[in-house]
C-alpha cells in the first residue's frame, strides 16, 4: 500500500535541484512536439543551443531578452510571496512604457541625468498605479485580484491602442500606430558596442539584489512574508495586513512598470502595441521556477530567455513554429508545480502485509 506523508523538512539540494530538473524535463518533453512537426530532434536541440551560445551576439540577445523577464519575474515573486495574485504584470508593463514615452518622447527637454530618472520614476509610478487599483478593490470590496488584474490587462491594452492612435501617436510615423521615439537623453545606454543589451539589465540585477535583502532582512519583508504565509495570524499579531498588501502592490506594479520602461527606453526606442510578447505572463513562470526567491528570479529569467532565443533561432532555421518556446515554458511551469508536491510530501510504502494476515 502506498501512502503520502508530509516531509518534515526539505533539503537545500532538493530545493535547488527541483527547478533544474523541471527545466530539463520540459526541454526534453519538447522532443514530442518537435517530432510531431517532423523536425530532426537532435539537430533542433543543436540549433537551440547555438542560438544562445553560438556567438557573443547570440548570448547578448539572450541577456536582452532576460532583462524584462527579471523585472516581471520579481513583480510576480514579491506579490506571490504576500499571496497577492498579481497576474496583471502585462498591463502594468504597458502602463510603465506609456508613461515613459509620454514624458520622454519630447514632452520635456532636459539633460539625461534629469530626464532618465524622471522616466524611470514615472514608469514605476504608472505600473504601481496599475496594481494599486485591483489591490484596493480586493481590500475594500473583496473582489478577487486574479480576475481583476487579468481583465485589467485587456483594458490597458485597449487603452494603449487608443493612446497610440491618438495622444501618443507619432506624427511622423507614416500612419502606423506607434509613439514618437524617446529623446536621446532619455535612452538607457547600451552595455556593449554593436549589441542590443542595455543598462536596463544592470537596473534589473540591482533590483533583484535589493529585493532579496529587503525580503529577508527588513521589517517590511518580515511583514510581507507573514501576511503571505498566514494573514489571520499576521493580523492577530498587529501587522496591518491591508497596508502590507498595498505596499507590495506598489513595489510589484512598479517593477512591472520598470520592465516597460526598460524595453521602450533601452531596446525599442518607441512604443508599439506589440512591445511585449507576453513578458508579464512569462514572469509568473519565472517566479515559480525561482521558488519566489528574488535572486532565483535572475537565474530563472536567464533560463527562460535562453529557451525563447534558442527556440526562435531554431524555428527560423528549421521551419518549426516558434510557439514551441511557449510550449516549453508552460511545461516547465507545470513540472515545477508537480515538483513542489514532491518537495512537500514523500511517498512511502506501508505494511500491506500486516493488514493481509488478519483476513485469513
Amino acid at each position, binding site marked *: 500500500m502506498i501512502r503520502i506523508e508530509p516531509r518534515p523538512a526539505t533539503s537545500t539540494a532538493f530545493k535547488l535541484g527541483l527547478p533544474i530538473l523541471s527545466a530539463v524535463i520540459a526541454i526534453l518533453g519538447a522532443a514530442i512536439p518537435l517530432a510531431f512537426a517532423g523536425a530532426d530532434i537532435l539537430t533542433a536541440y543543436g540549433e537551440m543551443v547555438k542560438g544562445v551560445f553560438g556567438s557573443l551576439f547570440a548570448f547578448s540577445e539572450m541577456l536582452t531578452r532576460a532583462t524584462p523577464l527579471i523585472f516581471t519575474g520579481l513583480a510576480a515573486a514579491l506579490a506571490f510571496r504576500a499571496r497577492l495574485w498579481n497576474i496583471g504584470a502585462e498591463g502594468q508593463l504597458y502602463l510603465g512604457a506609456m508613461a515613459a514615452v509620454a514624458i520622454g518622447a519630447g514632452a520635456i527637454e532636459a539633460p539625461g541625468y534629469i530626464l532618465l530618472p524622471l522616466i524611470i520614476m514615472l514608469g514605476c509610478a504608472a505600473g504601481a498605479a496599475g496594481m494599486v487599483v485591483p489591490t484596493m478593490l480586493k481590500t475594500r470590496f473583496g473582489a478577487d485580484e486574479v480576475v481583476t488584474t487579468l*481583465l485589467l490587462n485587456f483594458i490597458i491594452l485597449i487603452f494603449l491602442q487608443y493612446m497610440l492612435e491618438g495622444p501618443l501617436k507619432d506624427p511622423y510615423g507614416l500612419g502606423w500606430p506607434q509613439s514618437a521615439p524617446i529623446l536621446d537623453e532619455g535612452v538607457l545606454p547600451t552595455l556593449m558596442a554593436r549589441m542590443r543589451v542595455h543598462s536596463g539589465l544592470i537596473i534589473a540585477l540591482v533590483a533583484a539584489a535589493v529585493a532579496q535583502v529587503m525580503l529577508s532582512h527588513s521589517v517590511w519583508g518580515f511583514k510581507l512574508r507573514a501576511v503571505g504565509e498566514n494573514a489571520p495570524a499576521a493580523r492577530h499579531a498587529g501587522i496591518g495586513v491591508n497596508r502590507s498588501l498595498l505596499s507590495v502592490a506598489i513595489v510589484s506594479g512598479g517593477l512591472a512598470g520598470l520592465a516597460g520602461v526598460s524595453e521602450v527606453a533601452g531596446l525599442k526606442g518607441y512604443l508599439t502595441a506589440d512591445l511585449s510578447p507576453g513578458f508579464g505572463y512569462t514572469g509568473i513562470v519565472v517566479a515559480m521556477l525561482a521558488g519566489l526567491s528574488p535572486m532565483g528570479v535572475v537565474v530563472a529569467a536567464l533560463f527562460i530567455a535562453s529557451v525563447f532565443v534558442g527556440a526562435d533561432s531554431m524555428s527560423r532555421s528549421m521551419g518549426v513554429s516558434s510557439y514551441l518556446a511557449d510550449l516549453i515554458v508552460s511545461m516547465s511551469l507545470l513540472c515545477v508545480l508537480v515538483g513542489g508536491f514532491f518537495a512537500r510530501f514523500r511517498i512511502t510504502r506501508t505494511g500491506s502485509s500486516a493488514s493481509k494476515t488478519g483476513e485469513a
Partner: protein
Amino acid sequence: MLDILNILLSDSFWAASLRIATPLIFGVLGALLCEKSGVLNLGIEGIFVTGAMVGWMAVWLGLGLWGGVLAAAVAGAAFGLLHAILTVPLGLSQHVSGLGVTMFATSLSYFTYRTALPAVSSPPKIEPFRALDIPVLSDLPFLGPVLFQQTAFTWLALLMVLLVWYVLNRTPLGVALQAVGDNPDSVDAQGLSVYGLRIGAVVAGSALMALGGAFLTMSAFDSFFFGMVNGRGWICIALVIFASWRPGKALFGALLFGAFDALQVRLQTEVGAVVPSQVFLAGPYVLSIVALVIAARRADYPRALLTPWFKGQR
C-alpha cells in the same frame, strides 16, 4: 434616447445578444461546475482556445460539425483532467495550476495549428453551423428571429443550463457535488469519494468550457485565428461570482453581458464619431470588473473553494 429604445425593441438586437452570450453560457456553466465542487479552474481561457482550435480542425479534417463538437469536448476534458489531477489528489495551488494549464493549452493549440497549417496567409474556412429554420416557429414575429433562428449550438447551450440545473438540484450526484464543495468531510464520512466527485466535476466543467470555445469557430465565425478568445474565459470567471454559482443566474448574467455587448456595437455606429471606439471595446472587461465588485462581498462562495482535501487527514 429614442435610438436606444429602438435598438432594445428590435429582434435583431436580442438575437445578437443570445448569440454573443452563447460561448459565455458554456464557459460560466463549466466554471460553475468546477467551483461548486471546490476547484477554481483558471485553465478556462486556454481550454476555450483549445476548444476553438480542435472543434474547427475536426470539421476541417472532415469529421463533421457534431464530430467537431465532440472532439472539442474531449480535448477540453483532457486538459480538465490535467488540472484536476494537479489540484485534487496532489492538492497543488489551484491558481498556479490553472494559469499553467491556460499557458499549456494555448501554446499547444497554437503550435498544433501552425504545424498543421505552416504557411497560410488567410485562415481556411469551414462550413459552420447554420441557423435553424423551424417551420412556423421561425416565422413567429419577434420570437422567431430571436429564439428559433439561432444555430443548434446555441440551443445546446440553453439545454446545458437546464441540464446543469437539474443535475445540481434534483439528482443524488448534484447533492453530493454541492456537499463536496462545502465540506469534503461530509462526503467522505458518508462513504463517497471526494476525489472522484471533484475530478469528475472538473473534467465535465472543462468539457463545457471547450464547447464555449468551439462555438466561436463553428458557429459565430468559420475559421480559427490567434487571440480570438480574447479574455472570454476570464470574463466567465467573473460572471460565476456574479451569478452566485446558480445556473439560472449564470444564464441571466451571460445574457445581460451579451445584451450589453450587442448594444455597444450598435451604439458605436450611432455615436462612433464622438466617442473613441476603444471605449466600447473595453466595455465588456470594465463591466466584468464592476459586476465582480458589486457581487464579491455578497457572494455565497462554496466554502471549500481553493481548499485541497487529503484522504486520511481529518
